[in-house]
C-alpha cells in the first residue's frame, strides 16, 4: 500500500497534516501503537523540515507486512554538510522558525532515535531525500 502527500513550503498551519493522515491509516491497519508512535515522530520531523527549509516537496509512505518505508523528497536547497546537520543542536532555521519553538537542531536526531534506518541523500541546489524505515514485527 502506498500513500502520497504533498508538502507546502513555509506553510506551518499545515505542518503535521501528512503525519496525522498517515497515523490514522496505521491505526486502521492495527499497527502496534508503540511502533505507530515511532513512525509518527519520524514522519512529523521530516515533514516540518520540508516546510521550514525546502521549496516544498512530497512524502511517499509505503506499508507492507514487514516494514513501513517513508520517502521525504524535497526541492532544494539541499544540505551541504550532512554529518554537521546530524549533530544535535545544529540548525540553520530562521529566527521566525525558532521563535515558534522549531529549529532547535533536534529533528534529525528524533528521526534517528525512532527509525530503524535513516538514509539521507542531498544535493545542494537540487534537493534532499530522506528514507526512513521502521520494521514491523511478525505477528
Amino acid at each position, binding site marked *: 500500500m502506498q500513500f502520497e502527500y504533498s508538502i507546502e513550503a513555509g506553510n*506551518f*498551519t499545515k*505542518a*503535521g*497534516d501528512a*503525519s*496525522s493522515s498517515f*497515523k490514522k491509516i496505521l491505526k486502521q491497519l492495527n499497527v502496534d501503537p508503540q511502533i505507530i*508512535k515511532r513512525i*509518527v*515522530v519520524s514522519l*512529523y*520531523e521530516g515533514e*516540518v523540515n520540508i516546510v521550514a527549509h525546502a521549496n516544498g516537496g512530497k512524502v511517499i509512505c509505503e506499508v507492507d507486512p514487514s516494514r513501513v518505508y517513508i520517502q521525504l523528497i524535497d526541492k532544494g536547497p539541499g544540505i551541504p554538510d550532512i554529518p554537521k546537520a546530524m549533530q544535535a543542536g545544529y540548525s540553520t532555521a530562521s529566527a521566525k522558525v525558532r521563535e*515558534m*519553538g*522549531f529549529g*532547535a537542531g*533536534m*529533528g534529525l*536526531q*528524533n528521526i534517528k*532515535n*525512532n527509525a530503524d534506518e535513516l538514509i539521507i541523500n542531498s544535493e545542494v541546489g537540487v534537493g534532499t531525500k530522506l528514507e526512513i524505515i521502521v520494521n514491523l514485527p511478525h505477528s
Partner: protein
Amino acid sequence: MQVKDIISILDLKIFGGNQGLEREISGGYTSDLLSDVMGHADSGKVWITLQTHKNVIAIASLKELAAVILIKGLEPDADMLAQAEEEGIAVLGSNEQAFEVTGKLFNLLTR
C-alpha cells in the same frame, strides 16, 4: 486523575477543547521546544508551554497528550483554538509562570 480535576486546584482558565476534559493525566512535560516535546513527551502528559500557535495542537494530537496549559496569561492563537476544538484537546491557561505551574502539577500528581 482527569484534566477536569486539575482546573480549579491549579486555578486554570479553559480556553476551549472541552471534549478533552475527561482525558486521563499520566504526568506533565514542560518545554517550549517543539521537537523536544515530539521526541520525549509520552502520551497522557499535560504540556506546559508559552507557545500559542496551531502546531502545538498538531503535536499534542500526534503524541496523544492529555492537555495543554499556556503560562503567564498567554492566550491561544485563533487557529490553535480551532484546531483544539477539532482534535478535542483542552487548552488551559494560567497566570503563573512555568516553574510555578509545573511545581503545582507535580505535587498534585505525586502526592
